[in-house]
């Protein structure tokens, strides 16, 4: 959590160092669709953007406020439902509300709900908060199939984004138009959330996370600090919901159930709760894996599960943590030292992994493919899954790869140690 203090020493209004990442990021968002033009690519990017906003808002709770929530999807979902309803109002009463402002309503609604729930759930932190969030999450998810009038029951509520007044002739018929709308909201909300972490409330959120009692003796009510963070998080979750509604034009019970809440927890953690940009990484990587892997293999969720468990066990700081580990070597200008050892260990390891995955794929096919369907293709090669050779090859590559990696690991360790010790500095 200490990253937040890094800039604190130069109190200039806008530092280049501070602004640069944002400029680059925005530029990136602008050109992406020129690079990946296919419809599906844009669909994926939209999904990414939405997940990023949601994950960032979740990290306002977990990372900064130390509030572990199992029901954050509720606020996204609520925002989403509000927005579809708005879409339909716009359609039915042809209101002059342009689509791009819709997410605001989602945000406000999410915020409203967060106020109500937060009023009692944020009184305590820790397990109590976690469990209340779980309970409330389940309750509202369940209501969604009962209160059909608002939630549309099993079928959810769907709308049509193109019914609003066109903005500069844009009717949002096409993914690409929606993409830019989403991207705009992404940048805006990300920036706002970043700034929030710098406000007094944002800072005190950290303090309350670490030691709520002491904070009380510094003039701040832990409960209110929690409440404000919670409400803010609810707002941005609502925005994410609005974006979801605009993208998919349907919102259902799954948008606010436990599964959704759980996965955002995992995504955020995968990216790393310790740094602001962690959740962004998490969202990107997760969405990519999900949409790419799921097309390649049936057991992609198995790989995801393995990834998560591995992350928690070996990189509790998440992806962001792994990256930040390298800041010191770079500062010392010793990053080069790591290059070769990395290649020499990670490459074989990767091969090993591919081998293992191959083995699993074959096993799975063996076990579950229909009778007589022995033909399977893997890594663009097709072969008979029932013959011994392929699996043997896979297992051998796996073994070989890992053996190599293990053999070269010590070298990496040494290089790592070396790269982290300033010249002349004693161990």
């Amino acid at each position, binding site marked *: 959590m200490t990253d937040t203090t890094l800039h604190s020493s130069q109190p200039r209004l806008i530092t280049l160092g501070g602004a640069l990442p944002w400029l680059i990021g925005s530029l990136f968002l602008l050109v992406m669709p020129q690079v990946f033009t296919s419809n599906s690519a844009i669909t994926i990017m939209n999904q990414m953007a939405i997940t990023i906003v949601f994950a960032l808002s979740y990290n306002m709770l977990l990372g900064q406020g130390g509030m572990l929530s199992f029901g954050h999807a509720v606020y996204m979902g609520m925002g989403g439902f509000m927005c579809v309803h708005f879409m339909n109002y716009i359609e039915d009463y042809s209101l002059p509300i342009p689509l791009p402002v819709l997410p605001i309503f989602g945000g406000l609604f999410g915020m409203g709900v967060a106020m109500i729930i937060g009023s009692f759930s944020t009184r305590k932190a820790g397990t109590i908060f976690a469990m209340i969030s779980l309970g409330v999450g389940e309750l509202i998810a369940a209501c969604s199939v009962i209160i059909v009038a608002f939630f549309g029951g099993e079928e959810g509520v769907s709308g049509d984004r193109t019914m609003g007044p066109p903005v500069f002739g844009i009717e949002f018929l096409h993914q690409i138009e929606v993409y830019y709308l989403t991207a705009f909201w992404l940048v805006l909300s990300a920036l706002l959330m970043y700034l929030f972490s710098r406000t007094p409330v944002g800072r005190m959120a950290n303090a309350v996370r670490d030691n709520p009692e002491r904070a009380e003796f510094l003039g701040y009510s832990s409960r209110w600090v929690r409440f404000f963070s919670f409400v803010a998080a609810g707002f941005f979750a609502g925005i994410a919901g609005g974006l979801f509604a605009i993208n998919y034009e349907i919102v259902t019970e799954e948008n606010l159930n436990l599964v959704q809440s759980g996965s955002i927890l995992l995504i955020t953690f995968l990216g790393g709760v310790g740094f602001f940009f962690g959740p962004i990484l998490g969202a990107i990587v997760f969405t990519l894996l999900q949409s790419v892997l799921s097309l390649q293999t049936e057991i992609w969720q198995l790989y*995801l599960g393995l990834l998560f*468990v591995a992350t928690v*066990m070996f990189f509790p700081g998440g992806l962001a943590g792994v990256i930040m580990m390298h800041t010191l070597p770079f500062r010392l200008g010793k990053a080069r030292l790591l290059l070769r050892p990395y290649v020499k260990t990670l490459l074989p390891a990767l091969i090993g992994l591919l081998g293992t995955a191959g083995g699993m794929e074959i096993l799975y096919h063996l076990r579950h493919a229909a009778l007589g369907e022995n033909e399977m293709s893997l890594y663009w090669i097709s072969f008979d899954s029932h013959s011994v050779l392929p699996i043997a090859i896979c297992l051998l590559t796996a073994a070989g790869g890992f053996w190599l990696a293990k053999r070269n690991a010590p070298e990496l360790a040494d290089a790592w140690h070396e790269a982290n010790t300033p010249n002349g500095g004693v161990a």
Partner: protein
Amino acid sequence: MELILVNLIDGLVTGLLLFMLSAGLTLIFSMMGVLNFAHASFYMLGAYFAYQISLFLGFWMGLLIAPVIVGLLGALVERYGLRRVHQYGHVPELIFTFGLALLIEELVQFIWGKDQMPYTVPEILQFSAFSIAGNAIPAYKVFMIFISVGIFIGLLFVLTRTRVGMVIQAALSYPRTVEALGHNVPLVFMGVFGVGTALAGVAGVIAGPVLSTFPGMAVVLGSIVFVTIVIGGLGSLSGALVASLLIGWITTFAKAYTLRMEDFLSWIGFHKPVDMSESLLRDVWTLTSPQVADILPYLLMVLILVFRPYGLFGKRDA
């Protein structure tokens, strides 16, 4: 009248089943402070292992062996997974179990596929023990009751007669110091986790045939188990028992008797609007108790947490 009795029995069975799960979880959660989200997954493993074993050695061997295997698995998970994650704090720990739950579900599908397993009640227990007003009470349910009561007594003994509980409690705040006093903390933790998961395993073996054995069976129970121990009060075994029964009966009765919100509302003096096709409240009016039966426990939990954070029997805060 008879129907009430019948439902009391059904509720009892549901409740005791829940208890077998929550017992293990209280052990782990309240003692080790680990929010073990994978607990229900171990329950699922119990069912699948038992099914697999029963194919070769029959149901009873399954009942004996499966929990042991699950327990060992649990111990391994603690030794090579949790123990490592433990040092990073509670949230990573929880995420670990969270990921583990995901992983186990996928592994189960990997091995046994997505369909339901034909895991059934053993022949000898496939008769109805007795029947009340035409409602048959299967012998298997009676059997379940005995098993879970046995577990309760066993656990109570372990917890009250040994120093284990205290050691773990202390290790929560200062594990290093507890070790410096001569207690082998890692071993104790591993043991507790093993036993806890083994209990989940037993529950799985027994529930598998009645609640059906399929990859989703863990998710279905996953969160309700937490609800149970929170309502009961963390760290209190009897609390877990009472809460389990409470939940069992509440849900059973809510389903068995169709109470209408409409009647209730008009009883307290509201008048049903003539046409409410448009009003948001229309669904509130048509609400019936079976519809909400399964979420009543969550409602109960939230209320308890707001007004009595330490649960029904708990000593300290959740």
